[in-house]
């Protein structure tokens, strides 16, 4: 079973994402900020990270930079997931190492298609 780490400081978003991902046959773990997410990735690297932009403690961008600096044998795919759709915002996320980008709110088809694009469906 493929694994996904949902990183978002909103419990509601995590719950919605978990529900969608479980219907797509993913095993789901959750983290409330970038630091928790990094700890999780170092201990049990998931196949993909669904990553929020604005979070306390460590933001999505900071997490991406920290993830790139780790020596994980296989870097998880990262789908950036935000409420911002400015082109500068999107380009910054891709340049920082995100594999895909999705804007909230999202639905099951959108998440499924993004997972397929990063080779996980």
């Amino acid at each position, binding site marked *: 079973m493929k694994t996904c780490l949902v990183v978002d400081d909103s419990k509601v978003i995590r719950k919605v994402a978990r529900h969608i991902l479980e219907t797509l046959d993913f095993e789901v773990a959750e983290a409330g900020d970038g630091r928790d997410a990094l700890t999780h990735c170092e201990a049990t690297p998931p196949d993909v990270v669904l990553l929020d932009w604005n979070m306390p403690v460590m933001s999505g961008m900071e997490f991406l930079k920290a993830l790139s600096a780790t020596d994980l044998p296989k870097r998880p795919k990262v789908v950036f997931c935000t409420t911002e*759709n400015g082109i500068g915002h*999107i380009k910054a996320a*891709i340049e920082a190492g995100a594999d895909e980008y999705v*804007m909230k*709110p999202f639905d099951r*088809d*959108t998440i499924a*298609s993004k997972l*397929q*694009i990063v080779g996980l469906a």
Partner: protein
Amino acid sequence: MTIDKTALRHLAGLLEQRTGQQIGPNRLWRVETVLKSLMRERGIANLDALVAAIGAAHDMTLATDVVEALLNNETFFFRDAQAFELVRNGALEALRQARASSRRISIWCAGCSTGQEAYSLAMIFADARAKWDGWSIDITATDVSEAAIAKARGGYYSQFEIQRGLPVSSMLKWFDQVGHDWRVKRDLARYLRFRRHNVLMAQTGSFDLILCRNVLLYFSPERRREAFDRLAASLAPDGYLMLGAGETVIGQTEAFASSPELRGLYRKTAALRVKAA
């Protein structure tokens, strides 16, 4: 709330009369949902009153607007990725060899809805520009819905629409951000011509590849057979037809049969017979 079945049947009949499309019993529930905003805008209280207003014909646009609202325009970019792989690596590679001398490929996207499928096709060519350099690529995209064609032609998509199926790299490459929406770039739009057309009507031209996905499932068996005949008349003898993931020609028509070399695509039966002889 109980919905009057007579009104539902009347509205379903109107849709079938105008477009050939049916609303199956399991989808009748959506009639009131999709007509809700139209009824609210026009101050119509319920479906019975809507049917009466259409019958009174004081407003000639009402029936057209109802039909437009009842059409299912669900679509997204690269819907069913395997199908697009089959187009890219199967049909187009075969046509590239078959049309090596004319260097001309003509594609019909029948039932293109709001254009995402047609633009996805165009991206296959635009992303491999060097490979198709010197080729004339023409994609005709049609739909029975005037509103859907207008949107497709305009090439504007909301963030929600554009991120459904489209890789972010393609979004940045082929679309410009305009406010909160995204507009297709001219370099991509140049491959396409959008036109209102019902697949049950005769089509002009001969096409090398026809995509008619998730369209014929809304027709009765008789209308579906008619549509297959129309598609066959518009397909080149060595051309390919692609249907939706859950659709087939088996038991529906004698005009097409499965392509022996490219599973998932269909060829004209007559052409296969000639090849076998």
